[in-house]
Structure formats: C-alpha cells, structure tokens
C-alpha cells in the first residue's frame, strides 16, 4: 500500500458513511419499491400465522442467533444490567453530548451522564430509567467500573469518525421500530448507533460471522417499511464496523437486501434452517 493510498480507520469509516451510493438504488427506485412490497407481503403472512402466539419482537440479535453456527448462546439468561450491557447506552449518551459540545472528552461526557442518572434518581425525576436506578444504586467502585467500560466504548466511536464530514442531520443511538399493520404482536427493531441522511452505522461486537449481512439488512428493512410513500427518502447504506479489528462491512441498498432481511425474519419466527439466506 502506497503512502498516498493509506487511510486511517476514521477516514475509511467516514468514507463508508458518506460515499455516494452504489448499485441500482436509488437509480432504480421501482425495483426498490417492488422489493419492499414483496417484503411487506412476506411479513403480513408471518403476522397472520403468528396470531395468538404472543408478542414477538425481531431484533438483530435474534437474526444472529437463528443464523448462527449452532453455538449455544446464553439466551435463556434474564437480562441484567452490568458494566458491559450498560456501556452502549451510556457511551451513546456521551457521544451525543460531545456532538452538542456539552462535554470536551468521552471521559467527561460519561461522568456527566452517570451524574445525571444519580441526580434524576435522587430528585425523583419523571424520566428515570432502569439503568439510572441501577447506576445510582452502585457503590463508588462499581460506578467507576461502569464508567471505565463506557469511556472505552465511547472513545472508540468518537475517534473512529470525522464527524463534521458526515453532515447534518446526525442522529446518535436511536433504535427504530416497525410495528406490523397486520398484527399488533409483531414488531421489528432496526438498531443503528449513528444515522445520517444517507447511511446507518452499526457498531458490531463478537466475531466476524456470515449472519452479519442479514443483521444489517434488518436495519435497511425497518427503514424501508417505516418510510412514508408520499415523502420517501432515498434508501441508505448500512455500515457495520468492528472496533476490535477495524473491519468494515458495507451493505448497499440493493433490492435483494430487503428480501434477505424478510427471509431472516421468517427464519426467526419459524426457527427453521437457513436456505436462501445462506446463499445470499
């Protein structure tokens, strides 16, 4: 690699987020709309079949599990807050305050977020969350452990992007949900850590895996399903990034992405073996 070709992780990731779209979309908007219609039909059928089976929320984690290699995951363990499970929520709040110039460093931003939690709980604020209560109940050393984990998470994200180059609007850490119009019991979650007008960044953890394209496709599907027909924005790219390795996966908004995601949702609901997904 020549010197002139070398780019930092921040350059690569920023380019992946800001580069013009490739492929037939948005040039072939008709194909995109047709793929969305097909996905809607697939999901409608799934919702009808699951009626009476209780609510079901499909997330990227579900997709990962169902398309996994068969390794047993600790799925049956109830969720519990810990330094690790809290780091993303606190880290995203820290990055938001950095972007708003309310804090100068990830360390300061995380400490401010934790202080907010304690203050909210102490003052009986109306927006107190479970996480706030858990943080406020921790002893000082436990709180430091939480802060350390969140600072690392936030610092890696903060240093990985050339934020001004992403443009506005910029949304940090907002999950999007799509509720099936055919059944109040079915909902899909699209998790992205940073959203621009043209792209969605997902911070990934764990090993590189074959299921990652389907996980990221779910983000694209949720965005497509949420779009209003009368004011539809251009479909965006989904970028997955592993901070551990610096590896980046780009999922362009090709119509096949929607089929990939719809198939993954069907597999999650059926608990069946992958077919078209594996070949995608």
């Amino acid at each position, binding site marked *: 690699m020549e010197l002139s070709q070398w780019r*930092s992780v921040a350059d690569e990731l920023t380019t992946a987020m800001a580069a013009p779209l490739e492929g037939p979309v948005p040039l072939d908007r008709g194909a995109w709309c047709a793929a969305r219609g097909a996905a809607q039909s697939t999901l409608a059928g799934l919702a009808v079949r699951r009626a009476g089976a209780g609510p079901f929320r499909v997330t990227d984690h579900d997709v990962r599990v169902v398309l996994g290699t068969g390794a047993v995951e600790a799925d049956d363990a109830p969720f519990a*807050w810990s330094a690790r499970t809290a780091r993303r929520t606190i880290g995203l709040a820290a990055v938001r305050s950095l972007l708003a110039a309310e804090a100068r460093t990830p360390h*300061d931003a995380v400490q401010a977020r934790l202080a907010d939690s304690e203050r909210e709980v102490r003052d009986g604020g109306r927006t107190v969350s479970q996480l706030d209560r858990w943080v406020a109940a*921790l002893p000082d*050393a436990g*709180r430091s452990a939480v802060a*350390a984990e969140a600072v690392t998470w936030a*610092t890696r994200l903060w240093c990985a992007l050339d934020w001004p180059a992403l443009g506005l609007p910029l949304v940090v850490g907002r999950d999007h949900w799509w509720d099936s119009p055919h059944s109040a019991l079915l909902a899909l979650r699209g998790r992205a850590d940073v959203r621009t007008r043209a792209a969605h960044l997902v911070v990934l953890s764990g090993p*590189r895996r074959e299921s990652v394209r389907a996980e990221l496709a779910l983000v694209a599907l949720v965005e497509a399903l949420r779009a209003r027909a009368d004011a539809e924005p251009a479909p965006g790219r989904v970028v997955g990034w592993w901070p551990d*390795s610096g590896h980046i996966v780009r999922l362009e908004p090709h119509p096949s992405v929607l089929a990939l995601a719809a198939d993954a949702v069907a597999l999650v609901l059926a608990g069946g073996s992958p077919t078209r997904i594996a070949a995608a």
Partner: protein
Amino acid sequence: MGTLRPMVLVAPRPLQRPTSGAVAAGAGAGGEVLALLRDTAARPSFDPGLAGGLRAWLEDAAFGVVASRGELAPALVLGPREVLGTGPVAGAGPVAAGVADGEADDARLSEEAVVSRLVHVLFRRLVVEGAAEGAVVDPLGDALDACRAEGPGGAGAATVASVEAMDEGSRKALGTVVAGHAAHLADLLPRLAPAWMPRTDDRVAIPLAGGRIVLHGVFDLLVGIPRPDTASLCALGLCTGGSWARERRLLHYLALLETLRSGTPPFRLALLETGSGRYGVEDVREEHLRAIASHLAAWLGATAGGAEGDIPEVGVVGAVAVAERG
C-alpha cells in the same frame, strides 16, 4: 521478510530519566512514567507498508493452518496464552484472567488470577478517577464492588466467587496483598488528562484467513488517537507478578495487533509492576514487531504440522532501549 518496504523509524535510543520540569506533570513514579511517555523529542514514523507486510506474513502462515484443519473447521481463536504461552496474564482481560465470558460464575480461580483481576479493576478505577489521591480507600472491598458491577458470567463474577469461598484468614491475607499492589499502583500510575483519550481494556481481534484464525488480546490502557502516518498511541500494561520478560513480550504482541488493526503501532510502551513498584518504558521498534510476527508465523506453521508444543519461546529484543526502575 521480502514483502516489507524499508522502515522509516527513529533509531533505538535509551530513554532518559525525566528532567525536573517534566516530573512536575505528576508526583512520584507516576510523574516519571508520564514524562517518559510524553517525551516527544523523536516520535517514530512507520512505513505505511509495514502493516501490510506483517499481515501478508501472517496470512501466509495462517493459510497452512487452514489447509491442514479444513475450510469448515471452527475458527481458531488464539490469545496470548496460546501463542505466547504466557498463562494467566496479569491485568489483561477476562480471558487472560482464566475465565472466558459466559463460563460459570462459580469457576474457582488461582490466587494469582484473583490478585491479577482485583488489581486490574483497581487500575481501571484509578484511570477513570484520574489517579486521584484517596480514590481507593478499601482496596479489596472496592475491587470486589467493581467486579460485581461487571455482571454475571465473566472474570469479575468468578473472582468474587473465589474470594467469597475463602476462609476469613485467607481473605485477610488477600486483602493485605491487594493493598500492597494498590499502594504501588497509586504511586506508579500517572495522571492522564482526559483529552489524551485514555481507555482501558481496549480489545483487539485480528482475523486471518478470512476469519478462520483470530488473534486477540486486550490493552490494559491505550492513550492517544491512531494516525495514519505517525505512531501516535501509547500503551500501558499492568503486571502483578511473574516474568518481566513475559509481560514485555505480551506488550509487543499487542503492539503487533494494533499495527494490524490501525496501520501503525503504538510508539511507546510502559509496563508497571505492581508487586514491586518497578516500571519500564520503551519505544516500539520494527524488530519488536518482526520478532513477534516471526514467532506467530512459526507457531502457526507448527500448528499446521501438528507440533505447536515445539515452538521455542520468542526472545525479547531491544532491552537496551528500555528505561526501567526497579
């Protein structure tokens, strides 16, 4: 290593004790460590081809392993314990402490691993609190509180379980040992400004052969932001006991992984020995990276041939460039 272009790297040089002005950045040994880390008289510039050359070398070796194990074999996940034979590593993450995430909470750890983990969480606390005096009042109690906050299923939970299983006398003795480490740690750890982006437990995982082999490790502390053409990071490792050379080797291994991740290695490494209060600071040099890469390639080659136990320990190079205080 024919794939490497010539290095553009500062010549190895012994680091000098700080001047009195530099020491003013902090008190005690921590101030000295900081002054050595901050010494910017000659910050190395690395050839941008270095990372590519090292990766090509390792990919070649990994290919042989994949060929012998088969394409469909599960991924071979290798940490310092496997490839360096370092055993439970002081201060490195949960895996190095002897318990992988998801393993049973009641797994009993060795005393060495328990001390390592407890000192490690105290270290993280001190970094977050800015090495403030009085940040750690009850070392054992604080460390256990921090371990509990790590949640179930990891090294923290296993550490808590191991300590709670001790009788009163053993726990008291453990408290004394941990307090000794904490005192040295408080003296050794520099005050790091938040603007330097200090982050603890920064995990690195480098996939080779399309992810069929993964080399991983955990930096106890990284400072700085990766730059494309300049080595701009400092890495700091924690050592609670065992071989000094082994811990240096681990830092060199991590420097190699960082080179593969971001394109440039850390430009300086510090190792803090909390049992004795000893520390060392050294520049990262091409020969460090080459030696570790050579060892890994040989290890992978032996694995492909089914003789991984026959690889001699990699030597530690560049001792002349290390500033140590014992």
